[in-house]
């Protein structure tokens, strides 16, 4: 049995009449990089603050490496937090910031210095130790915050949207760096973000949060390929959702009536019943586009191009089904060579690319 780094059991948090977290149960394995992903107000930051000890849960327990720490004060927990805006102490130098937690633990000065050097090297800021935090750029400040939080070797490192204030290029670079540091240290990271790309790029597992609950918990590939709910499929990546109901279920497959017409699937799913309300999710990049009107029905959809958006490495096309919704298609520039608004096109996709989701 592998050790669980963090176990959250039956956790709820209410602020007055508002419920921030509702019956959360989940586990993070030792050495894992887990992201808590969700829109603002979904409870992800509250969950992180409960793990770090700054909020007390209304119900439930937090167990870290087998030890129940629910009632432990933040300063006594083996977790450290990297704040959204760094929270570097302005009256201390970079070195003093990084060594702060070690001094509180009563380390010898020489040992602190050695450790601070090691940490600054880890975040590649050896040169800036004597600077004031006010003299740092945003990216540098976040690296110092990371070094400070890692200095005392926390058993779990918690990160509260630490990259959200940085510009795109720097953010992408820091994502890879953060992941590399985590791999090198073999440490357990819990990362809160509202940026789905960030979560997909960095995590071993992602917990998608919505309205105080965890909607789905799985690997990035799982989450993207096999979203467990309409919310997840819509929130992670762009998707086309075709809503409707089941018209026929048999051994051979399933037939659906949706807002783009009748759709046949060559598979069925347990518990699916005729008349059940469903949505079919198809990612834009899974849709193939061909010129000319095809035969209606089956697994092809006839549509008219309404709009073409050039995105550099790819293009996005909006196609409109007669009396139906818009369908977004994403493909390489050359795959749609010569297609212009107003053209009649034929859209197809593989059955395996379509995910069947139940309406709740």
């Amino acid at each position, binding site marked *: 049995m592998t050790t669980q780094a963090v176990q959250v059991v039956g956790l709820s948090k209410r602020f007055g009449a508002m419920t921030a977290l509702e019956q959360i149960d989940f586990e993070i394995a030792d050495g894992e990089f887990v992201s808590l992903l969700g829109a603002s107000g979904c409870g992800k930051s509250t969950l992180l603050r409960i793990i770090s000890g700054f909020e007390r849960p209304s119900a439930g327990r937090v167990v870290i490496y087998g030890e129940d720490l629910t009632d432990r004060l*933040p300063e006594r927990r083996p977790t*450290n*937090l990297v704040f*959204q*805006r760094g*929270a570097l*102490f302005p*009256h201390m130098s970079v070195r003093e910031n990084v060594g702060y937690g070690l001094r509180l633990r009563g380390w010898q000065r020489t040992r602190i210095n050695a450790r601070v050097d090691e940490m600054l090297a880890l975040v590649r800021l050896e040169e800036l130790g004597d600077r004031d935090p006010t003299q740092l750029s945003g990216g540098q400040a976040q690296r110092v915050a990371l070094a*400070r*939080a890692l200095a005392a070797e926390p058993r779990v490192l918690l990160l509260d949207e630490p990259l959200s204030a940085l510009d795109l290029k720097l953010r992408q670079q820091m994502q890879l760096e953060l992941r590399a540091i985590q791999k090198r240290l073999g440490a357990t990271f819990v990362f809160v973000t509202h940026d789905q790309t960030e979560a997909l790029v960095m995590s071993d597992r992602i917990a998608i949060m919505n309205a105080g609950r965890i909607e789905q918990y799985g690997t990035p590939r799982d989450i993207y390929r096999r979203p467990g709910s309409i919310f997840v499929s819509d929130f992670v990546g762009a998707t086309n959702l075709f809503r409707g109901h089941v018209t026929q279920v048999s051994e051979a497959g399933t037939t659906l009536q949706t807002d783009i017409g009748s759709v046949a699937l060559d598979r069925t799913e347990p518990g699916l019943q005729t008349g059940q309300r469903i949505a079919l999710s198809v990612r834009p990049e899974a849709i193939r586009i061909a010129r000319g009107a095809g035969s209606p029905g089956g697994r092809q959809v006839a549509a008219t191009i309404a709009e073409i958006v050039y995105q550099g490495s790819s293009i996005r096309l909006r196609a409109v089904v007669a009396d139906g919704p818009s369908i977004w298609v994403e493909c390489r520039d050359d795959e749609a060579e010569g297609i212009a608004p107003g053209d009649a096109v034929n859209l197809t996709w593989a059955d395996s690319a379509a995910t069947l989701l139940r309406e709740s």
Partner: protein
Amino acid sequence: MPLLPAGLFYALFFGVPMLSLLVISLWRAQGFNLIPDFTFANYQKIIVSDLYRGVLLRTVSVGLIAAAIVVPVAFTLAYIMRFVFERRGQLILQLVMLSLFSGYLVRIYAWRTILGKQGLLNSALQWLGLIEEPLEFLIYSQVSVVITLVGLLLPLAVLPLYSAMLNVPRDHLEAARDLGASPFHLLRTVLIPMVMPGVRTAFAFAFLLAAGDYVTPTLVGGTQSVMIGNIIADQFRGTGTNWPLGAAMAFIVVGVTLLLYLAITQLIRWVTKW
């Protein structure tokens, strides 16, 4: 351009008068006449005289005691308003500041009626049967002077501390605790150093205004609690009428305050040094 009217006003009616007071402090008084001179005799007289030195020492000690009560209480109050009540703290601040504008003389006078020998506190305590005889130390003593001054100065000390704390994000306090700081360490290594300018201003306000007040010792202080302000006031509008001497005393109060301010600043820095 918009700076001009107030700027000129300050120069003419604050700068020049303060300078002329400084000049006068180097003059001599002969009876009711002022003799222009350049002498430090007035300063010397104050330092050498046992009476004046005693009064000066008492003034400094009352100022220090008042500041030593006012600054920690104001600090705690500012902390609560900023970090416990957050937005509602503003309302408490308004209430605290409102008391500042509710009658300076009146409040001092009110303390006399509360603390007096047959005052409210004594009669209430007697009524409750807690004491037999009135507590005499409550009025016309340093106790009553300090009690009154604390009430007057508290709102003034809260303001700079609260604005300094507004500039401290809650994140920084949480970061310190997350890294293992106990509440005591948090105060010493993070919060006080970060609000140091506010602490200094609060101390300067409290000490300087306590040491310079003369209405409070006049109304609630006894013969044993005369402060330098009473003697200065006497030189200008009272029995003394020695302007140069009074002017020199005023500058000694300001000078002593400056020295104490530097000393206290160093002391706090040394205590929070880590």
